[in-house]
């Protein structure tokens, strides 16, 4: 299944345009993560970053690689990595937003207390009908 998805994605890239420079977006992603998704985070800022990340994922088809070579194409590799990065970024954000408490390196300034009743559990992320969901499983 994953292999089929990946093949389709790579085939799809051929039709992507490069109106938007993904290197600029990659830099932006790094910066907003550094500023808002570090050790100290809060719900409002995380939600703003999540919006930005979701917007970037929507725009991915306009951020395709400009190097069309079939030989050692690191522009293509970096683009694929950027797509993966955005997927992980969304998972990290949804997890951090759902965990309304502070624990270890996850310090929520808007919820500074640890809450074992609700969150002494593993975060499990999955797609349900294309929508990213988070469950806390004890």
């Amino acid at each position, binding site marked *: 299944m994953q292999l089929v998805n990946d093949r389709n994605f790579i085939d799809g890239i051929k039709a992507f345009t490069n109106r938007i420079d993904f290197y600029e977006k990659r830099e932006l992603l790094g910066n907003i993560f550094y500023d808002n998704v570090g050790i100290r985070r809060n719900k409002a800022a995380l939600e703003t970053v999540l919006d930005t990340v979701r917007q970037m994922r929507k725009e991915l088809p306009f951020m395709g690689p400009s190097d069309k070579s079939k*030989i*050692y194409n690191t*522009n293509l590799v970096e683009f694929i990595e950027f797509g993966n990065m955005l997927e992980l970024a969304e998972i990290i954000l949804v997890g951090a937003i759902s965990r309304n408490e502070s624990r270890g390196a996850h310090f929520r300034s808007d919820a500074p207390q640890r809450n074992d009743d609700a969150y002494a559990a593993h975060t499990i992320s999955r797609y349900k009908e294309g929508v990213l969901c988070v469950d806390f499983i004890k």
Partner: protein
Amino acid sequence: MKLSIRRKTTEPTLREEVVEYEVDAQDATLLEILNEIKTTRDTTLTFSSGCRSSVCGSCAVRVNGVEKLSCVCKPKDGDLIEPLRNMEVIRDLVVDAEKAQQFNAKAHAWGSKNSTNTAVSQDDEKRNEVQSDCILCGSCFSACPVYETNSEFLGPFALTRVWRYVTDVREGESADKIAAVQTNGIWDCTLCGECVPVCPQGIAPKSDIDMLRSKSGTMGYMDPKFSSGFGGGLDFGAPSF
């Protein structure tokens, strides 16, 4: 400052050229500069890298003819950046290291069989500590002049690695390794020392090859050039011991 990069592509047809770039690089490493050019000016510029901290060995290139790790080297105005030598260029600064790395297998550069003694003291560990640090960057391989005449030479990093295992007290098959480096190996090295200053890990393949020669001598091997030069052996009336 200006930086020249030797570029090569085979698509759609072979094109080789030295391209000059004007870069603003305050105290930047060569890898940072290459990334800057790729992400802001020319996405087709091709080079390889990994760790960005001199650990993985994937970013070696030549700067004014001398092998350097891109992630360490800070270039100066007018420098010429080229791919490593003695390996096929795939594209721009990326070379195909496959054949070079296969020499490790040909030279039996691995731990084969545990000896009966598997206790390793601090001193035992120190004996091949430096050689164990090889990151397979290929710098020594690129600097070695032997490839101009013998493309099958096992080469500096593979031979250094053999010495690393031959000196390992846990290795039970040293003799097999010494046998594997007799042909296209230790005797083909000219002991020129070119491989030594280029190693980012402070390894001296030349010295290790010299050690392998001495060890081979004690095991009854000798330099084939020497033996053929004297009529194919010691058969010239010398007293036998």
